[in-house]
């Protein structure tokens, strides 16, 4: 349906309200990206795009990224705009719901981590920690559609 999407990462099967996440992000994308002055850098796509990740590593890198956004990114994105904050909350709570499901897969050994996903995620963290925390969080949030497009 236009509502939910089922993602199959090998044996790991995740249902996700992609439409709700996308509509919340679309509503604030311009506002968030306008707060990101550093247009030449990317957190998720530097030096290589997510599309380079092998399919066998897709579940693990997705798990890492949902943890990254929930644990590190959203909390540093509070703005003075109540509407933007509400949309960030919608995305964050949806991400938390998916993160839980990925954790289940991981515990059941359905979301194995290879060398490549570890390397890719290490690069993403290095990109993130290369900026001050607010700038890095805002930039990461502004790149959410890169993650969503790659997942779809």
């Amino acid at each position: 349906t236009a509502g939910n999407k089922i993602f199959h990462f090998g044996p790991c099967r995740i249902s996700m309200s992609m439409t709700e996440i996308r509509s919340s992000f679309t509503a604030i994308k311009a506002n968030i990206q306008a707060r990101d002055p550093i247009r030449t850098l990317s957190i998720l796509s530097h030096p290589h795009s997510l599309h380079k990740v092998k399919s066998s590593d897709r579940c693990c890198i997705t798990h890492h990224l949902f943890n990254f956004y929930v644990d590190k990114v959203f909390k540093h994105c509070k703005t003075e705009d109540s509407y933007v904050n509400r949309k960030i909350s919608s995305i964050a709570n949806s991400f938390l719901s998916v993160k839980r499901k990925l954790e289940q897969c991981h515990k059941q050994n359905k979301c194995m981590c290879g060398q490549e996903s570890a390397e890719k995620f290490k690069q993403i963290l290095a990109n993130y920690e290369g900026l001050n925390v607010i700038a890095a969080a805002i930039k990461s949030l502004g790149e959410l559609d890169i993650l969503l497009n790659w997942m779809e």
Partner: protein
Amino acid sequence: GDALLPAPQNISILSTNMKHFLTWSPVIVQGETVRYSVEFQGEYEREYANESWIPICECSLITATVCNITEDISATVAYNLRVRADVGARRSEWGALKGFFNRITTSLTPPLMKVIADGYHLLVELEDMGPAFQFCVLYWKKGQESRMQQKVVKEVSSAVHLDTMEAGPDYCVKAQTYVEAINRNSSFSQTQCVRAQGGRSVWL
């Protein structure tokens, strides 16, 4: 001095078909207009954002005792909700919803449905209930319930063609909704039967 303004009481949720409303009893202050403000807190805010609360601006300083929280309850996690009252410079404590609200508990009603015999074609029109809703439509020849057929309708735009009917027997249809975000179905609608007769619709 000014008596403390009582916090709103009887705070509850009305949630049907993924539309969620927070309601409460009015705070009565003779000769004064009482205004209310609503805030919510998702599981994310509780566990990762210092238990912060987020105001709903459409329900800030309102006089109504109901707030549409549908847009903010957009994840299948446990939410806290609270309301407070204001009269002039006086402000009450927060009144909180007892327990959490998770949209998984929304009540799902059977869909409104209209079955049409258009000549020999069996059609069904379904109520548009929003993007979260799919429909499971069952149809069969009366008396042949064991040979019931199913059609899943993911998006409602126009009448859905179910089958090409033979002249004579009655064809019966019933439908239920399915919401994938919470993985739940409604109960089935009333069964409706029609019969094809050379292009004239006949209601039974």
